[in-house]
C-alpha cells in the first residue's frame, strides 16, 4: 500500500464528512456521514498497519475547498475523493486492501447514482441567517468566531487523539482517547451543521505534525484540561450572549459536556503519572 494513500484517505474522509454536513437533504447527509465514518476507519486501519511496519505517514494534508453548488456536484466531489484512493490502491492480495477496495467500490457506485441530483447547496452562501432568522449583530459575530475556532479545535482533537492511540500502551488510555474522539466527532458535527445553516461551512485548516505529535503526553493533557476549561467558559459566555433560546440551550449543553472531557483527561493524567 503506497504511503501517500494515507493522506488521500484523510482527504477522502474529510470530503465525505463535510459534504454530509453541507447537503440540505438530511437523510442523504446522514448516509454520507456513515460512509465518511467508514473512510475514517479505513484510515485508522492503514495507520495501524503502517505503525506495525514502521512506515512513515502524516496527518498533514493539502487544503480542501468546498465549492459545489448542487447536490449532484456534491456527489461528484465525494466520488472524486473515493476514486483518488482507489487509484492508489492495488489488488496485491492483501486482505485489508481487498476489503477497503470492496467498500470503496460500493460507495463509489452509490455516489454515481446521485450525480443528477438537483437540490441546491446553501452551506457556503454566507447568508448568516439561522433557519431564515437574522441574529442580532454582536451575537452573530460571537457565534461565527466561536464556530470557526471550535470546529478547528474539534478536528484538531480528533487528529491528536487518533495519533495518541498509536503511542500509548495502556488499554484504558486507548479507551479514554476513543471516547474523546467520539465526543469531538459529535461536537464537530453539531458545530458544522450550524455553520452550514449560516452558510459558512468550511473544512478546517490542516493540523501540523508540530501540533499532533506532542513531545509530552503529560503536558498535552495538562494543557488540554485548561483548554477544556477555556472552552467551557466560551460556551457559557456565548449562551449568555446569544439572543435565541434554542442556541442558548445548545451552548449550555456543550458547556456541561466539557465536564466529561475534563474528568476523562484527569483520569488519563493519573494513569500516566
Amino acid at each position, binding site marked *: 500500500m503506497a504511503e501517500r494513500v494515507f493522506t488521500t484517505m484523510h482527504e477522502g474522509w474529510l470530503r465525505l464528512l463535510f459534504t454530509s454536513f453541507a447537503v440540505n437533504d438530511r437523510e442523504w447527509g446522514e448516509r454520507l456521514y456513515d460512509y465518511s465514518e467508514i473512510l475514517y476507519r479505513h484510515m485508522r486501519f492503514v495507520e495501524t498497519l503502517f505503525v506495525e511496519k514502521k512506515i512513515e505517514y502524516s496527518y498533514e494534508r493539502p487544503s480542501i475547498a468546498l465549492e459545489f453548488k448542487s447536490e449532484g456536484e456534491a456527489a461528484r466531489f465525494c466520488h472524486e475523493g473515493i476514486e483518488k484512493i482507489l487509484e492508489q490502491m492495488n489488488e496485491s492480495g492483501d486482505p485489508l486492501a481487498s476489503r477497503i477496495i470492496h467498500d470503496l467500490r460500493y460507495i463509489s457506485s452509490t455516489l454515481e447514482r446521485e450525480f443528477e441530483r438537483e437540490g441546491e447547496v446553501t452551506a457556503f452562501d454566507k447568508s448568516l441567517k439561522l433557519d431564515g432568522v437574522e441574529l442580532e449583530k454582536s451575537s452573530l459575530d460571537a457565534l461565527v468566531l466561536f464556530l470557526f475556532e471550535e470546529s478547528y479545535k474539534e478536528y484538531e482533537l480528533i487528529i491528536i487523539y487518533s495519533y495518541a492511540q498509536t503511542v500509548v500502551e495502556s488499554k484504558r488510555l486507548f479507551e479514554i482517547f476513543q471516547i474523546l474522539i467520539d465526543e469531538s466527532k459529535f461536537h464537530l458535527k453539531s458545530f458544522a451543521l450550524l455553520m452550514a445553516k449560516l452558510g459558512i461551512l*468550511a473544512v478546517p485548516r490542516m493540523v501540523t505534525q508540530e501540533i499532533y505529535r506532542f513531545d509530552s503526553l503529560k503536558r498535552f493533557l495538562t494543557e488540554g484540561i485548561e483548554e477544556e476549561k477555556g472552552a467551557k467558559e466560551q460556551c457559557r459566555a456565548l449562551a449568555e450572549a446569544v439572543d435565541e433560546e434554542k442556541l442558548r440551550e445548545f451552548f449550555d449543553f456543550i458547556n456541561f459536556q466539557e465536564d466529561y472531557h475534563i474528568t476523562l483527561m484527569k483520569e488519563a493524567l493519573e494513569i500516566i503519572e
Partner: protein
Amino acid sequence: MDTKEIYETTMDHMMNPRNYGKLENPDAVGIGKNPQNGEMVIIYLKIENEKIEDIKFQAKACMTTVIAGSIFTQTVKGATLKEARELTSIMLEKVKQMPPEEAACSELVAEAFLAALEHHETRGKDLEAPVPTRMIENECADQSLQKEGVENG
C-alpha cells in the same frame, strides 16, 4: 472598502485561509511566538532574485491570527523583499495604534515574517543557520477573555 466588504473579505479568509501549510525545501523559515501562551506562527519562504516566489504559514493560534496570516501572505506573495519589509513596518506601526489585545494576532504574523527574513540573511553566510524565533509584546484577546472569565467566575 466599506464595512460589508470588509466583513465578506474576512469571512472569505476564515472559510478558505490562503497559503496555509508548509513549503518543501524552503529558503527561509521564521517563527513568531507569544511567550505568554505559547501561540505561534511559522512562515516559510521561497525566494528567487530577492523576490518572494512562494510563501506559506502555519498557526498554532486563534482564528484572528489565521485571518491575519492569510491576508498578509496573499499580499506579500510576489513582492520584492524590500517591498515586503516596508509593508511589514507599516503593519507594525498600525499594530501600535491598536488595543494590545487586538494587536497580538497581527504582530505574531509580522514577527514571524521578520524572523524568516532574518533567517534568509543568516543562511546566506551559513546554510545550517538555526530558525530564529521572535517574541511578540502584545497579549492576545483570547487570553484577556480567559483571564476575565477566571476572574469573574
